[in-house]
């Protein structure tokens, strides 16, 4: 099984934008990988003039939000600039029971890396720019321009997802049977837990990206 990896373009976001941006991206990816019967739900972002699509599944939404909260708290603790979230899809295979293990193995077939650059001033701006549309202070125009730029790059990322989904189709496993919203098993990895786990993930990724374009 081949594992396709998509490195999404870097996004320069401010702290208060993390939640929306991540929601938008994660849901967009999962929507493309939810091949069960889906009843799409349009969601308009509040901060940006962007509409994205959810699968309309409450559980999934909860799960994604949870991860995002974890990530935000991690960002607060580690105000280093770059941070990465990985959304991986895998298949579960029962490994051949050899030796003493009867282990369940995850076969990753796709990984998405969301790269965020969180701007340094975390909360100072958040309250301000939320409702500063009326008051025009000197920095306002700049802020508007910045937001437009973030919106543009967010769109770019979304198109990047679309293009990736379009170009790489062969590695997607057959559609699972079942009713309701069916996703492929997936996990969202954030650098939160410990850096070592994240490093492990990086290593794993490096191993798996060795031959990414074999099938395509």
């Amino acid at each position, binding site marked *: 099984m081949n594992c396709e990896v998509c490195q999404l373009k870097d996004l320069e976001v401010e702290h208060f934008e993390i939640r929306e941006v991540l929601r938008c991206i994660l849901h967009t990816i999962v*929507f493309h990988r939810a091949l069960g019967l889906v009843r799409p739900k*349009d969601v308009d972002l509040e901060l940006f003039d962007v*509409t994205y699509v959810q699968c309309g599944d409450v559980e999934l939404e909860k799960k994604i939000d949870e991860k995002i909260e974890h990530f935000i708290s991690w960002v607060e603790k580690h105000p280093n600039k770059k941070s990465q979230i990985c959304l991986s899809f895998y298949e579960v295979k029962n490994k051949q029971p050899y030796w003493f293990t009867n282990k369940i193995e995850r076969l990753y077939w796709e990984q998405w890396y969301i790269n965020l650059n969180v701007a340094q001033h975390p909360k100072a701006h958040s309250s301000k720019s939320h409702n500063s549309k009326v008051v025009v202070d000197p920095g306002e125009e700049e802020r508007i321009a910045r937001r437009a730029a973030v919106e543009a790059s967010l769109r770019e990322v979304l198109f990047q997802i679309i*293009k990736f989904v379009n170009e790489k189709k062969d590695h997607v496993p057959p*559609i699972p049977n079942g009713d309701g919203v069916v996703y492929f098993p997936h996990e969202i990895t954030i650098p939160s837990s410990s850096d070592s786990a994240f490093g492990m993930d990086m290593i794993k990724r490096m191993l798996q990206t060795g031959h990414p374009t074999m099938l395509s």
Partner: protein
Amino acid sequence: MPRSHGNHSHSDAAKMEQIITEFYTKSLHIILESRTPYVSSRNFSGEQIMSMSLSSPSSSSSSASASASASAASSVRPRPRDKWFNLALRGYPGGMENLDLWHHSNPEPMVVDVVLVPLDWDPTPNFSPTREEIVIERWVLQYDHTRKVKDNHSSGSSRRSGNTTLHNLYKKSMLLLRSLYLTVRLLPAYKVFRDLNSSAQLRTFSLAYHVSSVIEPFPRSAEAEMQRFGFTPIDTSAGRLCLSVLYRSSVLDLSSEPTPLTPQVIPDYVGSPLAEPLKRFPSLPQVGLGNHGSPSSLPFSRRHSWGFDLYRASSPSVSFSPSPSPTHSESNASISNPVSRRFPPTSLPPHPPGTSIAYKNTTSFDEYCPSPTFSPSPSPSPPIYIPGTHLSKGLLRSESAPVNIPTTRLSSLPALSNKQYLPPSPPIKNTRSGTLRTDKFTGPIQTGAAVEQLFSLGKDDNRKYFGPKISSNDSPQISFSRSSSRSLPDDFDDPEFDCPFDVDDVDMTDPGSRPGSFDQKGHISQDAAVGDLVRMLKKAPPLRPEFSNSVNVPQASGSEIWSSSIQEPCPAAQNAVSTSVTSSGPGRSKTTADALEELQGYREMKTLLLKQGSKSYT
């Protein structure tokens, strides 16, 4: 999924065809759903139907059924069409089902032009020349047979490998449709659509669409403005499925810039240097309808040119206006619920696509009913893999008025009888394609024709069911058109009727010249004489002040009521006229008597004077 079972009776090729057909339908649905205001997943379709049908007063009977079905439609049960590609969409844009989107013998591309249409609030929206429309998006879906991919799997003709090929095709088209679903929402035109949907205020523009099979070239300048996004083609064993979109990135500037509110139609509007925003598109692509005599209500019109070249069916497409068309079309859509309701093949077992060919006649009806959307579908309809529009060949692509007509009445009939009277589909398609070009524009006429057609059909089939059907069709449909045509003139009564009475008013100052009053008196010579006298007297300066007052009072009040802005001699409306005339009745009789009295008084005076004079002389 469709190909997963029953692959014995159906060849893989047929199944593939089916998938592609459904792909056409689904992608069109996705595009239109997010470009047609009021018909989108952003709105609850049920509410929308109800409000639409409520706004058309004459369709009360149908609106009842519409609301009933609408409420039922809100249930979450997946409808047959939803199962396709596992993507459940909400509202089917009305009339979409009628499109013969693709057929293996008709390998034309599907071209969907999304256009921005300036709206002007012309009282007769249907027949005034249109203003320019601007193509802001062009979607082209093409199944290219020339690009065959020799794939080893299917040439091996092993059932298993063929099946996996199909699986692959299905999976890929599913992925493509999902990304289409998102792309449609990321393109600039979506903002226009969202604005149209969200804001309650009237806009000077709207969105419409044309579906055709011919790629009409843009002027080069216009094409230069467009950006292209191409989805990765899906290769099948028989061809290549290509979907791409050309779009304007500057849509927002266009739409946010309010088009001038001048009601006049400026013929060379686009070239006008005054129109800044439009200047950028010097030669507007007059794709689709072009300019000639096409209705200004282009949002209501759409051309399907599958096979027919320039044929235009009215469309429910986009209308943002309280004008009759949307309610009309909308109620048509709702009306058709019962139609769709009789199709759930309860008696049929859930059948795999392999067997579906046997039911083509039945299931193909679903095509022109917006069925899954609105219909409560009383019988749990199994995932029928509707064979798709390719059955209807080139014939059926009109708005579904005639078939939809059988409305409330039919729904009350038991399902079984409904099924019985159903004619085999081909004849219906013939009638439809024959009659329905512009059904909604010329409501009554077309309806009449359609009813006739239906009736002739009924002769072939089960006539006893047609009797009631026709009568029940007839009335709602006619009342539709009546109401729609009536309501507008009513609204515009005042301005229109003001002017005629300006002219009349001149006459009123000279009531004697009114033929009515004069001729009647003229019958008897004595009366005629009196009339003459009266006329003379009236033309003369008033003998008494009260006389002029009595005439003027109604006039003054009339003008006050109707239009205070209009100058005095223009009292305007019919009421004023009639009152002044009637009031002049008593006034006239009074003056006649008075005049006679006075005349006699003068005579008496004269005779007296004469007598006196003669006396003095004598």
